């Protein structure tokens, strides 16, 4: 499990990239220029070659031809702005947008001539505003909240996965001890509460270690695979395409470099000591909160099949937190992001996204409140769970429902 995980992840990722690359073998596009407007107007790329004809190819002729794609530019293209691309194999989005961009550019040139507009004038008129976002109290640096939130989302994803995987493992462990009856030997040596906490804390550290290893190994393996097979020229082409005018392109040193600069800027902005500290806190806090409840479920039931009715309501807030997290990336400071980053059942996931953006002194209280509530939250769930656990582990052959558990909660010590 510890070793297999990273190998599988790195293997699958590399396979996906490799297959993606094999798709980007050279695409031959035949342009049927019925309008006689765009012949020779398209720029070939390393992976896309254009060929031109004025004659319509029959379906069978295209089928037998060496062309992969057939672009029909109809006679009325200037009026209707519509073209059809016929494929033998569905082209990737990158190919689609490359072809579409080429056609846009070619038609723009045609329309400029039709309207007697000078090319140079047009480039000057054509506008793409770069909207910089600034907090009025902090005008020095441009905000990159959404990008940062995306980084936070990665941490949130790990926490979400960890809780789901390992809380279920706690439940299985408890159930195993109950069903194979070793539990009675154990509880004659240690208090049920100690046993339950031992299981939870033990698995928490197993999980933490395992994830650390996963991350290290996956990163190492990926870099090995990458150096062996990974280059992605097409992606670079597309970025180059999307730069609208040559002037703008010159302004930005190069697209790759600007991308790297953004990433460096993002890394620079994240408070990593805080982020790492909080990651471990929410990692453990969220795990303790949920796994206590999962332990209680394991203690209450006799078989895996009976866990369903209890596991569902436990996973719903977690999944919900994950969905809220996706919205929170787009609107990191919306009121739902704020609320669910404080609410203990969703905060381990949602707060990670907000943490990447950091807090101002004005909003710091939200982080403190979230931390306090999470601590209170897992003390509460542990307390509830210990009551269910204590009664449940020695209760056999009884179909347990919510009513029964409610009774256990009301038992004295």
């Amino acid at each position, binding site marked *: 499990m510890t070793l297999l995980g990273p190998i599988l992840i790195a293997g699958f990722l590399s396979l996906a990239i490799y297959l993606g690359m094999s798709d980007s073998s050279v695409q031959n596009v035949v342009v049927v220029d019925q309008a006689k407007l765009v012949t020779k107007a398209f720029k070939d790329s390393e992976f896309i070659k254009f060929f031109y004809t004025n004659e319509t190819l029959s379906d069978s002729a295209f089928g037998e031809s060496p062309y992969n794609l057939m672009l029909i530019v109809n006679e009325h293209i200037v009026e209707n702005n519509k073209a059809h691309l016929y494929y033998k194999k569905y082209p990737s989005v990158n190919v689609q947008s490359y072809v579409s961009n080429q056609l846009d550019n070619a038609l723009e040139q045609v329309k400029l001539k039709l309207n007697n507009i000078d090319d140079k004038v047009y480039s000057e008129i054509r506008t793409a505003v770069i909207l910089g976002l600034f907090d009025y109290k902090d005008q020095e640096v441009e905000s990159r909240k959404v990008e940062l939130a995306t980084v936070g989302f990665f941490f949130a994803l790990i926490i979400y996965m960890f809780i789901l995987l390992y809380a279920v493992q706690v439940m299985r462990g408890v159930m195993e001890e109950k069903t194979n009856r*070793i539990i009675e030997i154990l509880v*004659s040596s240690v208090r049920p509460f100690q046993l339950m906490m031992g299981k939870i804390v033990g698995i928490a550290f197993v999980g933490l270690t395992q994830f650390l290893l996963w991350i290290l190994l996956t990163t190492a393996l990926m870099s090995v695979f990458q150096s062996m097979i990974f280059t992605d020229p097409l992606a670079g082409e597309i970025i180059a395409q999307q730069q609208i005018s040559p002037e703008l392109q010159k302004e930005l040193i190069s697209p790759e470099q600007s991308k790297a600069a953004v990433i460096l800027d993002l890394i620079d902005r994240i408070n990593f000591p805080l982020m790492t500290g909080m990651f471990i806190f929410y990692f453990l806090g969220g795990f303790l909160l949920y796994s206590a409840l999962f332990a209680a479920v394991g203690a209450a039931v006799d078989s895996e099949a009976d866990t369903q009715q209890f596991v569902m309501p436990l996973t719903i807030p977690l999944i919900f937190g994950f969905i809220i997290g996706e919205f929170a990336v787009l609107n990191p400071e919306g009121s739902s992001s704020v609320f669910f980053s404080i609410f203990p059942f969703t905060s381990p996931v949602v707060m990670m996204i907000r943490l990447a953006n950091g807090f101002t002194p004005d909003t710091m209280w939200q982080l403190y409140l979230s931390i306090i509530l999470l601590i209170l939250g897992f003390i509460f769930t542990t307390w509830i769970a210990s009551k269910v656990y204590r009664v449940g582990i020695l209760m*056999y052959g009884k179909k347990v429902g919510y009513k029964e558990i409610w009774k256990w909660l009301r038992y004295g010590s």
Partner: protein
Amino acid sequence: MDKLRIEHISKHYRNHTALEDVSFSVKSQSIFGLLGPNGAGKTSLIRIINQITSADSGQIFLDDKLLSEKDIANIGYLPEERGLYKKMKIGEQAIYLAQLKGLSRNDAISKLKYWFDKYDLANWWDKKVEELSKGMAQKVQFITTVLHEPDLLILDEPFSGFDPINTNLIKNEILDLRKKGTTVILSTHNMNSVEEICDDIVLIDNANIILEGKVSELKQRFKPNQFELTFKGNMIGFTNALWTNYDLVETKKEGDLIKANIKLLNDKSLNDLLKIAIDHLEIHEVHEQIPSMNEIFITAVEQKNEPAEIIA
């Protein structure tokens, strides 16, 4: 001296009473039978002694001191429903269980080596529990119960699942442990073993103690004042002579010999019976009918359920 003293223990669950004001004591260095039909309250009591659950009222004293959490290390408990981690190697597992009872790892290993050798399990140290036969797993469980040399052993049905050879092995082990100073509480339905090894018993039924005492005394108390007479001779004359003071319970013919079960009534003694018999019969053998623990168990439980009769 009493090893364990149970005083006025009661335990009520929502819908039923498991124990109602139960008191008894267990002598030091004795084997004590805790008996009763299924559902009588034995397991509840054992769990309370092991501090797995707590009593609603009453107190328990171990060595004249109120039972406390640290006493766990001095008690060995073999539950009736017992299990082991199936996927774990038995050696590691035994070490783990010993450590839970407070032994150091090294102590646990050296003690386990001794017991594993003794019970022919040495080759199984690195095997998983799922590879073991039921009897072997039972042995491992027994070992982990006694390994930390507790003063008080509580064994719930220790013989179930064992073949006669292993049953004997465990029985001798229990006797051995008593000799070394251990006090053993044995909860079982196996009345033969009670008869063979128990010094004292209590019999619990429906949350109450219905019988307690030394095994030897109980047998005396429950004897039906009944004798088996083996003889040759004229049955008819003899039975007529018995008249109203005797009750001929049963007769059996074995070849020439007749065996008659005769209950003495109205304060008659064996001598009185023999006087009559000698006139009519050629007596070969006579002996008193002593009840087995099995019979005592059944009699006591049945009498308890007939409220008219009260047990002394």
